């Protein structure tokens, strides 16, 4: 076996730098220990103090998120958050990034991202019932992008389909900014009763600690450090893990069966930094200590050193603390599922993580030093110069516009086009509770044996955040919530996945800090606390950072599933209205819009965003929710990328109906901004037949405007008249073909 470097060699040759530790950090460790750390200890410190595990750059700022609420049963700090949905039921959910592994090996990188987030949820005692994902790639004209995109989607499909959890929603955005740094953010939602809640606490001196699930191999060693590596070109392929959804399905069933026995003290997923972080975090939460004998860990490979066993990121493993004398229960249940459960140590009360290999002590470290005393950085933030160079956005781009042609082109932009090519690869229906499948504003999942359903969406717009970090952050939360209320559900809580560039650049850190403030303000206003989340920095290649891309995963509740509203316009129902803030200037310009990016790509980042007001947003959402709950809505659809015209087209295509819209308030030179501008806080609604009067009565009690747009028609005609002149005249079937076929035409 290869000889490990000695303590002195690690110091003298500054080997700790290769582990990702700075000179300062290493000196702090030596002072804290009162001695030099050995090889294993240096490895343990390096992963625990990595950005990925310690959140050292972000921790200070994440504290500003609102995390409280009467319905919050578990806030941030556990494997996943939990909210109460009434009737003794609760849902647990979390979103997590797997960006860097996906950039290196898209199929396995994306697949293991899904596997990891599922484990986070069932560790809490919840049965996973739905998956979502938010994806970012470069543009589809690049062969490399098509490779990353198709393999990442296939990997997500492989894992979710095999394990039998429906993938019900999400989003995909294509932009050159993500070409080298694709984003894969996976979200999982689980359902449980209140008494099933489990947590990651290693308490009770003498209680046995077990490793359960898959065997440990050499895969993914230093994955946590690697995720935070500055230069993605240095990423090593050897660190990529391979996922086994079949194993995870067995692990899921075995863990839920075990938790149901009530004999589990604590349970935690072995994710990033494997046994090291799971053991340290479990002991830290309980204020206890642990002694672990790595020679007892079942290994897949021979000759693994304590260092390798502690840092392995082999998938589909859990760390479990049982009540004393009851480890046999775990062994029995896991044997039924063909899995191993092996006692590897005990809980102690000395506050230290003691790792032995048989009798030999391989490492002995204070848990407080690993977790609580991990560095917290106060990174400098500087307002980027570009923000002060943005101009007031134009309201028109062309003099002799072919607006019909523009709409047909816009619906075929891959970011706007139907994502059917993606989601038809996902099993969206297994568990037979998917009431609204992908392709809608939000997915809706029924709660078995109950009237209730939950609505969920994942949203983010990196370009908006880039153009205005604070407002863009707030808009991401607002859009997620708007998508939820469009189904008639009440938004409850948020999980966030915060994807940014290199935090060591003060301009990037400014984007991070400001957008957190924006998100916090919106979460506060909309009453949706943050219950879990994840930060991914260093999404940077060759000096080019991604757009600051916070993704908001939101869950809302429909008390009556039968009251759900969908985005498709329906035949035989009433007129279509634009629900918007009272007095909103819809002529606020084309800044940040997909239309601008399509027509003038060079100017896509040159203009300010349309104004956004949280009070106005709240009023629109409250109005939509009240109308949905009163049962007067036949359809509701959020207006987002592509603006009003695209939203109208989507609702027509989804409902296979035509439309005749006539608006007379726009001055002629503002037609483009009316049709394609992306002013926030707007919802299209179709009223139920005969309910117009009630709609107007109800709407009048909110500070919102109701602009009548037109009527659904039993034709194939999509017709928009502005100031009594035809602005857009297209066949619905032509819009449908352009919208549905766009991504497939790139991929085939």
């Amino acid at each position, binding site marked *: 076996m290869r000889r490990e470097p000695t303590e002195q060699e690690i110091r003298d040759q500054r080997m700790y730098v290769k582990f990702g530790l700075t000179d300062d950090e290493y000196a702090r460790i030596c002072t804290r220990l009162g001695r030099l750390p050995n090889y294993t200890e240096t490895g343990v410190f390096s992963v625990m103090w990595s950005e990925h595990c310690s959140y050292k750059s972000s921790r200070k700022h994440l504290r500003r998120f609102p995390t409280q609420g009467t319905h919050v049963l578990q806030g941030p700090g556990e494997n996943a958050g939990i909210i109460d949905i009434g009737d003794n039921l609760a849902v647990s959910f979390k979103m997590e990034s797997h960006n860097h592994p996906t950039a290196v090996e898209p199929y396995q990188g994306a697949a293991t991202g899904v596997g990891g987030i599922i484990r986070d949820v069932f560790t809490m005692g919840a049965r996973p019932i739905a998956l979502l994902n938010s994806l970012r790639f470069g543009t589809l004209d690049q062969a490399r992008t098509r490779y990353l995109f198709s393999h990442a989607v*296939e990997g997500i*499909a*492989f894992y979710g*389909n*095999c*394990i*039998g959890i429906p993938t019900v929603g999400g989003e995909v955005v294509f932009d050159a900014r993500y070409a080298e740094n694709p984003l894969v953010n996976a979200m999982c939602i689980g359902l449980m009763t209140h008494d099933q809640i489990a947590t990651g606490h290693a308490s009770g001196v003498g209680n046995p600690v077990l490793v359960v699930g898959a065997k440990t191999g050499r895969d993914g060693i230093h994955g946590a450090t690697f995720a935070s590596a500055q230069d993605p070109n240095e990423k090593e392929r050897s660190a990529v893990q391979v996922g*086994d*959804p*079949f*194993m995870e*399905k*067995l692990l899921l069933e075995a863990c839920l069966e075990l938790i149901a026995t009530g004999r589990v003290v604590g349970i935690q997923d072995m994710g990033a930094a494997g046994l090291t972080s799971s053991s340290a975090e479990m002991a830290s939460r309980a204020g206890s200590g642990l002694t672990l004998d790595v020679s007892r860990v079942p290994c897949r490979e021979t000759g693994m050193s304590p260092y390798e066993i502690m840092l392995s990121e082999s998938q589909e493993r859990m760390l479990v603390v049982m009540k004393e004398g009851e480890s046999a229960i775990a062994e029995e249940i896991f044997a039924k*599922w*063909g899995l191993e459960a092996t006692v590897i140590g005990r809980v102690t009360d000395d506050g230290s993580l003691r790792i032995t290999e048989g009798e030999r002590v391989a490492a002995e470290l204070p848990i407080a030093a690993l977790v609580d005393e991990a560095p917290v950085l106060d990174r400098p933030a500087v307002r980027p110069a570009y923000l002060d160079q943005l101009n007031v956005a134009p309201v028109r781009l062309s003099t002799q516009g072919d607006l019909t042609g523009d709409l047909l082109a816009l619906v075929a932009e891959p970011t706007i086009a139907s994502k059917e090519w993606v*989601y*038809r*690869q*996902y*099993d*969206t*229906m*297994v*568990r*037979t509770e*998917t*009431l609204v499948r992908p392709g809608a504003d939000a997915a809706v999942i*029924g709660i*078995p044996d109950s009237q209730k359903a939950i609505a969920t969406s994942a949203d983010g717009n990196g370009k908006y955040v880039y153009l205005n970090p604070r407002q863009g952050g707030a808009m991401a939360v607002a859009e997620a919530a708007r998508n939820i209320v469009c189904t008639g559900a009440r938004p409850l809580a948020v999980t966030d996945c915060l994807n940014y560039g290199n935090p060591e650049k003060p301009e990037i850190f400014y984007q991070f800090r400001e957008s957190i403030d924006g998100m916090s303000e919106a979460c506060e206003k909309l009453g949706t606390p943050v219950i879990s989340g994840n930060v991914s920095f260093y999404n940077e290649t060759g000096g080019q950072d991604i757009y600051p891309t916070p993704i908001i995963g939101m869950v809302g509740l429909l008390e009556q*599933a*039968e009251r759900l509203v969908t985005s498709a316009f329906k035949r035989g129902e009433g007129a279509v209205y634009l629900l918007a803030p009272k007095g909103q200037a819809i002529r606020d310009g084309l800044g940040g819009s997909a239309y601008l990016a399509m027509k003038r790509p060079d100017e896509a980042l040159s203009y300010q965003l349309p104004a956004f007001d949280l009070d106005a947003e709240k009023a629109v959402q409250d109005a939509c929710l009240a109308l949905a709950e009163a049962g007067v809505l036949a359809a509701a659809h959020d207006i987002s990328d592509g603006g009003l015209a695209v939203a109208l087209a989507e609702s027509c295509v989804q409902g296979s109906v035509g439309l005749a819209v006539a608006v007379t308030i726009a001055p002629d030179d503002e037609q483009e901004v009316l049709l394609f501008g992306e002013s926030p806080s707007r919802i299209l609604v179709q009223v139920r037949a005969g309910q117009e009067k009630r709609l107007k009565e109800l709407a009048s009690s909110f500070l919102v405007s109701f602009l009548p747009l037109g009527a659904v028609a039993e034709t194939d005609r999509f017709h928009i008249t502005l100031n009594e002149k035809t602005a857009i005249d297209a066949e619905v079937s032509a819009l449908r073909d352009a919208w549905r076929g766009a991504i497939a035409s790139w991929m085939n």
Partner: protein
Amino acid sequence: MNCAVLQFPGSNCDQDAVKAVAGTLSLKADLVWHETADLNAYDLIIVPGGFSYGDYLRAGAIARFSKAMQATVAAAERGAYVLGICNGFQILTEAGLLPGALRRNDHRQFRCDMVELEVVNGATDFTRAYEKARVTIPIAHGEGNYYVDDEMLKRLEENQQIVFRYASEQSPNGSVANIAGVINERGNVLGMMPHPERAVSERLGSTDGISLFRSILTSWRDGHAS
């Protein structure tokens, strides 16, 4: 009618099948673990969808050697009804209860969609309650590309063993003759790639799976009345 739903490591539509039997027939189906060797008590055995044993090697290849599958073969021989859905269909072909094999979809992708099916043989014990020739039932599979050689195809057609075909000209997976479901010669074992258990209520978008479950119950009652 006593109904069993087999459960292999990796099954994931087992609960859906139990729910569908309860919802359509008001019967409580038993979940039967793969190590069970005795299925004598059951009149209907459902081999559900999923990825039994991870579908490693080939879909269904390992499950066929389980005790429960050997008991299912015996049950089929004594005349019990056997319904294989998706992975269950793959297992039934591997076990030799049904002819043919299921290959990877010709487009190489997993495909989940609502599809229209033609009820080719509405006179079987599994389809007699169907009143229409076209039904909508979802599919969700990566290996549903049905294969038989020409000779066997001729036999299937002559014996009216083709029960369901994909109605669209282009099948969603490349199956020979657009075949979506076949029955054995004796008429008591049906395998199909589409998921009837996912088409049992309006809220799921289709109710066209209900007639399949009702057909089985009616057929069983007729058999027991005589």
